[in-house]
């Protein structure tokens, strides 16, 4: 009875913040096979980033996380930080929207890439430098030797995002989580970075969780797409089907409103509310904060807590 083991298996993931336990993510489940790419779409505040941070074990102290996150079959929730830190940047890594905040402004970028490498390999600095230059070259930075010696502010936004990509890929991770990786970039730079991401993911056979509010961008990177609404997953489907025949009314609205190209200039654009009304939204939110939902999550928490400790 051997079933192929998933790379990542998220089950009933629920995240609440603060003492008032404000729920940001509610009973989210999804799996990812090795090399698979899954896009996550949904309007801002729907829980995309919180889901990604939970997988990385990077949520703030005030986050209360329940459910289960299994990495190659092993529970991550409840693991000590030092074990998670070993996974991060090695087996899984993350690319954020704003490259400036992810880089140390006082350190040459080459050293930052090398540190990510050395941290996990314990290698001598000599080979780290070589690997760094190789990586910077691989992410399409011309004159990698010179770029390695530059400080972040001396690079353009597109160059900085490539450095981040190099850092995320330097240890050959099995999973790369990209959270709005091209949102701050110009379209021409975005197109190049997306092409490059596709190349390196393919070359490294890495899996990818790709978050973006731009549906067209998601359609280019991911064959599978999952839709989040107010902390819940409302739909998951192959990208071509999701974008051509969306099932949930909210997804229908998101897709319709993204297709500026299908509306003659000057004519009224469809909105999400045309498909998914404020009323139906209010109804499902009321359901979300009902006491029964709370009880259910509590049970799941205990169950998976035990699995995590065994």
């Amino acid at each position, binding site marked *: 009875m051997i079933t192929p083991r998933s790379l990542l298996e998220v089950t009933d993931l629920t995240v609440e913040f603060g003492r008032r336990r404000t729920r940001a993510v509610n009973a989210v489940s999804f799996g990812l096979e090795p090399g698979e790419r899954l896009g996550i779409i949904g309007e801002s505040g729907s829980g995309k980033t919180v889901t990604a941070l939970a997988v990385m074990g990077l949520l703030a102290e005030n986050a209360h996380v329940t459910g289960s996150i299994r990495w190659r079959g092993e529970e991550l929730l409840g693991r000590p930080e030092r074990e998670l830190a070993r996974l991060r940047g090695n087996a899984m890594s993350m690319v954020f929207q704003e490259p400036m905040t992810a880089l140390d402004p006082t350190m040459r970028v080459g050293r930052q890439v090398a540190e990510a490498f050395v941290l996990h390999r314990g290698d001598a600095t000599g080979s780290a430098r070589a690997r760094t230059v190789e990586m910077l070259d691989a992410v399409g930075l011309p004159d990698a030797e010179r770029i390695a010696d530059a400080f972040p502010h001396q690079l353009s936004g597109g160059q900085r995002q490539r450095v981040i990509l190099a850092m995320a890929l330097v240890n050959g991770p099995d999973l790369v989580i990209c959270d709005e990786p091209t949102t701050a970039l110009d379209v021409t730079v975005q197109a190049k970075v997306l092409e490059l991401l596709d190349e390196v993911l393919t070359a490294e056979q890495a899996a990818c969780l790709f978050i973006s509010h731009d549906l067209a961008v998601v359609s280019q990177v991911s064959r599978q797409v999952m839709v989040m609404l107010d902390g819940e997953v409302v739909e998951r489907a192959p990208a*071509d089907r999701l974008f051509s025949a969306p099932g949930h009314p909210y997804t229908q609205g998101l897709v319709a409103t993204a297709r500026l190209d299908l509306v003659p200039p000057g004519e009224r654009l469809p909105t999400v509310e045309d498909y998914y009304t404020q009323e139906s939204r209010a109804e499902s939110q009321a359901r979300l904060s009902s006491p029964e939902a709370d009880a259910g999550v509590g049970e799941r928490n205990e169950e998976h807590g035990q699995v995590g400790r065994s």
Partner: protein
Amino acid sequence: MSGELLRAENLTRVYADGRRRVNALQDVSLTVAPGQRLGIVGESGSGKSTLIRLLAGLDRPTTGQVWFDGTEVTGRPERELGFLRAAVQLVFQDPWSSLNPRMRVADIITEPLRSKLVRRQLPADVDHRARLAEVMAEVDLPPEFADRYPHEFSGGQRQRIAIARALAPRPDVLIADEPVSALDVSVRAQVMNLLNDLVASRGLTLIVVSHDLMVVRHLCDTIAVMQSGRIVEHGSAEQVYDDPRTGYTKTLLAAIPRFAGG
């Protein structure tokens, strides 16, 4: 009325940035006719915001001239620019930072009506309360929002507040700098529909700056493409979008993310 409302001739703008000199605009000329809807597109740093600040008289060109409705703007002291302040209003990208957090919505929206320069251009008997109610209705904001503060609202609602403020003095020209770039996809369409409706119902002249060619194509009848401080292509929206003449415009169009397999 003449065939042009705004005219810019040979504008250059050089910024002194430390020891570096930045040629943000290089020899830019253009005219805008009444009722025209001009879109300005280009990548970040291409000079879009610099150009509209010069057109609105918020900044002065290093060389070159700007006229509004036949009157030269350049070279005139601020106290003589009342005619421009009333007639040209702006909406900015970031609805989070462009509204004063300590002011109530009512005071934010009527602020242009209280400006000394603008006031002299308006009829003496403008009823601020009545005007407030009118513009709030125009942008679909419920009247009870008037007594609240900006932080209580979402990005889309804030952008409606900013648009209401811009409409308050009954401007001829609305200039919007990346008006939907910071908005969620689900509210972008609402704000674009609002802009389209307002332009049609008020007969506004519209200038929209965006890095997104699709946004500009939808809102505008004319497109100017900027690169490194110059206008490299300028034509009807249809022509620029369907039959681009310059390599740069073609590159921009080709880079627009499209639905894979759709």
